[in-house]
């Protein structure tokens, strides 16, 4: 008879609520009449995200002190709860965006079920406190995303995107798993804090096996966070995947992978600090350089945003490499506007895509800002947010991140970030330029008359994302306090 550990159901509740919603969505495909299937599953998924978010908030309130639960496999702390709230918020926005997307009737239930399951997996992953649960959570949401990428079999490139993501993601997972094995081989431990203790006890700080293992784990997480040079899949997958899914991936996957990287590095490898801070800083520089420079020449807006997301992985890695409390706060704070902006930007792209029936390029965005004032204005604020202009949360995020790097004594990293921001302006402003400064007549579209489609859910999601983006600029103090509570759970 094996002893079963006591399970802290409350700590697991965000994941469980997500799974519950997913189960209902799946079953609805069978039991709910077809005419009301679409609104019903969307509602269930939305409620699932809200419920999971509320549970995460309760966990945040109830867990001022971090504790290891379920046989030390997961951590119940505010850090995880914070990221879960961000993921669920991104999921909720994604539901709004997906509702307007055209999608085959026969897999609507599955679509929302996979979305909720993926979010549940992410919620589980950020709680991971052992290499085992880390891998489990990672695969859990990755498998969901592989399918979500390929779900629109009618859309050219969707299958290709799914396959690419599957192969390269599998590669990333394999690297991460191999790294975990090396770390286990070196320390004999799986739990993050146990690894740290074993490292100190046996003086393994410069053990090659451990360092190679750490490097491979970091590489595996960088795959998921699409940090250069592990980003090769990003543009193709982002371009091919259904646009709402892309938005969710850009926002949530990156948030979770980076948050987990911060937890793993600070909890599991505090003694190797000198090594990994440099490594992460280098990753950040490569991501910033590669993402921004490659984005300059993009004409397809989805690809452009994909490269921009690579560069943002770079910005957030700066916060991790700073390895101080301010860095933790900065990362967590930045996740809020960043996730909202990502989902929102892809939502707008999706709306334009449906309008034109072809991939959105900078050229065919012409006049969009004047035709759809709300979406255009939202998109403009998203681009300004990405570029880090004031009056958007993106500015505050960058400001905090640069401050953390400066506090860590790495002013050179501030300069790198500033130069990267300057380069990024060119393509972010190119989107605004395309939307507002080029007349639609240049497009030569046949006038079809009538008003543009009313996509209330999508417009609502975009509006909400804009409110988060602008609101987080003014409400810095409460959000930073909120992030401080979360970051204090880590030994920063």
């Amino acid at each position, binding site marked *: 008879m094996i002893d079963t550990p006591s399970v802290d159901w409350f700590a697991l509740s965000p994941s469980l609520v997500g799974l519950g919603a997913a189960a209902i969505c799946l079953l609805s495909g069978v039991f709910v009449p077809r005419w009301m299937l679409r609104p019903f599953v969307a509602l269930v998924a939305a409620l699932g995200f809200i419920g999971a978010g509320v549970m995460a908030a309760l966990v945040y309130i109830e867990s001022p002190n971090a504790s290891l639960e379920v046989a030390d496999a997961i951590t119940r702390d505010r850090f995880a709860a914070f990221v879960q709230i961000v993921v669920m918020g991104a999921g909720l926005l994604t539901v709004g965006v997906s509702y307007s997307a055209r999608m085959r009737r026969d897999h609507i239930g599955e679509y929302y079920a996979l979305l909720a399951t993926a979010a549940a997996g992410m919620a589980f992953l950020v709680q991971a406190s052992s290499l085992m649960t880390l891998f489990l959570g990672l695969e859990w949401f990755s498998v969901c995303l592989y399918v979500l990428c390929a779900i629109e079999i009618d859309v050219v490139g969707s299958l290709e995107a799914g396959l690419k993501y599957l192969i390269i993601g599998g590669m990333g997972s394999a690297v991460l798993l191999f790294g975990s094995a090396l770390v286990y081989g070196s320390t004999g431990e799986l739990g993050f804090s146990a690894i740290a203790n074993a490292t100190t006890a046996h003086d393994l700080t410069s053990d090659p096996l451990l360092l190679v293992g750490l490097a491979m784990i970091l590489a595996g997480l960088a795959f998921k966070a699409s940090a250069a040079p592990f980003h090769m899949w990003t543009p193709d997958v982002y371009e091919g995947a259904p646009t709402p899914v892309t938005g969710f991936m850009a926002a949530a996957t990156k948030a979770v992978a980076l948050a987990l990287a911060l937890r793993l590095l600070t909890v599991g490898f505090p003694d190797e600090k000198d090594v990994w801070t440099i490594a992460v800083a280098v990753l950040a520089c490569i991501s910033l350089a590669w993402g921004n420079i490659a984005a300059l020449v993009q004409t397809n807006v989805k690809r452009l945003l994909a490269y921009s997301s690579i560069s943002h992985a770079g910005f957030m890695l700066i916060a991790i490499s700073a390895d101080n409390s*301010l860095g933790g*706060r900065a990362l967590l704070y930045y996740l809020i506007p960043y996730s909202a902006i990502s989902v929102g930007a892809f939502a707008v792209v999706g709306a334009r895509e449906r309008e034109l029936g072809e991939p959105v390029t900078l050229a065919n965005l012409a006049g969009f800002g*004047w035709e759809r004032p709300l979406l255009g204005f939202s998109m403009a604020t998203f681009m*300004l947010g990405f570029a880090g*202009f*004031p*009056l958007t949360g993106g*500015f505050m995020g960058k*400001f905090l991140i*640069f*401050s953390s790097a*400066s*506090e860590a004594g790495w*002013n050179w990293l*501030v*300069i790198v970030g*500033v*130069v990267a*921001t*300057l380069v990024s*302006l*060119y393509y972010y*402003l190119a989107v*605004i*330029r395309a939307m*507002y*400064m*080029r007349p639609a007549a240049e497009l030569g579209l046949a006038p079809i008359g009538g008003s543009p489609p009313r996509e209330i859910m999508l417009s609502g999601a975009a509006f909400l994302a804009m409110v988060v983006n602008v609101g987080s600029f003014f409400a*810095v*103090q409460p959000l*930073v306090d909120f992030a*401080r509570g979360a970051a204090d759970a880590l030994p920063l």
Partner: protein
Amino acid sequence: MSDWLATILVFLPLAGAILVWLIPFGRIAGSIALLFALAEVGFWINGLFKMDFDSGSVTPSFDQQVTWFSDLDVSYHVGFYAFSFWLAGLAVVVMAAAIAYGFWVGRDRPRAYFGLMLFLTSAVVGVFASQDLLLFYIFFEAMMIPLYVLIGVWGGPGRLGATVKFVIYTMAGSLLMLASVIVFGLTQGTFDLVTAPASDSTWIFLGFAAAFAVKAPLFPLHGWLPDAYRESSPEVAAVLSGVISKAAIFGFIRICFVEFPGPFADFRNLILALAAIGLVYGSLLAFRAPDIRGVIAYSSLAQMGLITIGVFAKGGLGVSGSILQAVNHGLLSASLFLLAGTIERRTSTGSLDRLGGMARGRPALATMIMVTGIIALAVPGSSAFAGEFLILAGVFGTGWGWAVAGAAGMVLAAMYMLRLISAVLHKEPGPAVSDVALDLRPAELGIVVPLVGCLLVLSAWPAAISDNAIGTTLNPGPSSSARANRVNDEPPEGRMDFVPVTIHVSKTR
């Protein structure tokens, strides 16, 4: 009430902008915007009577501070020193004139247009009012957003290229400034400008100086200027050269000078040299420019060089003169750009070859151009003469060579202004000038006359500004203890011995 004045000045136009954006009647957008712009001027005049110009206190007038986020000691802190209050006054007057011009001409998509103009007003006034470094940066950057759209959407045929150049240049400067802001704030432990101790880090200083040098612009960072001034609509060009460039002067004085006394002295000669080159070079380019806007644009480059010379001169005389000249130049270039706009509307060209003879039968236009032009070339008795004289007198003590360059600039100014006047008003009527082209309409006069009126008042009484420019920040006649404490290594110079001594005293390095 009076403590709220700075906040009201900053946020009143923003409220107007939001109102204009939300009310779905494009037809009345212009009237609402004009109303708000005039109310803003009214509040500023109200402040003029309440402003304490002679206070020796370190805290600015209308001081108001609310903590924004405590982690890094960032606060919403606004207030006006005497010099920044004059610059803010310039801003609200010129913005009102620009909005009125836009209203008179009638712009497409009026809600977006007037909302952005009001938003820009808020940002500019915010720059002059902010006493917190991060807040300053935020307003400084916030100016970019409306300007970008205003040039890019309502500009001329080459607007897209012009906006890209403009944005890349200015953002390169201001992002370097962001790095400096962060490092300064973290090393000094606060972002508050009033309480932050002075710094002597050269690198941080250079980050700030770069941003302001691009914004002003100083030679050789003026690459964006001709395109931006030519391609934007006349009222936006008026705002750009008249108001936005003054943000750089504010930054040079409030941040570079006050917060970095050491590096300021170290780099004085370099910046004076760049400013002097800009003055002469800009004047020469203005003399050779083929169109009205080119003349005004390059004369702006020259004038900003001259004003910068005054700021970087030792002693208070130069700074007083700079503030006076900044206000003069703002009003002058705004009037000239708006007049250029009215001429372009009548002839559909700004090319000097195709213009000429416009004085005949158009007395109002001729009078306005003559008066502005004569003041701009700094004829003795004009306010520009007073400003330039103070600057030259101030810089003479620093090195007579700088004064020679400045005097050369004044001579060149006479050359290009007279060339402009004669090319537009006199000579034979140009091919683009039709006999039926009207004189200035009453509405146009209503826009330009107040600007010129301000100039005439200042010509009669330049001391209104020059004697009250450095009162609050800079206490003339420092006490001996203040002298002992002064961190600036320069010797006291005469009666007008200026320098924000009071501020330095409160700062320990």
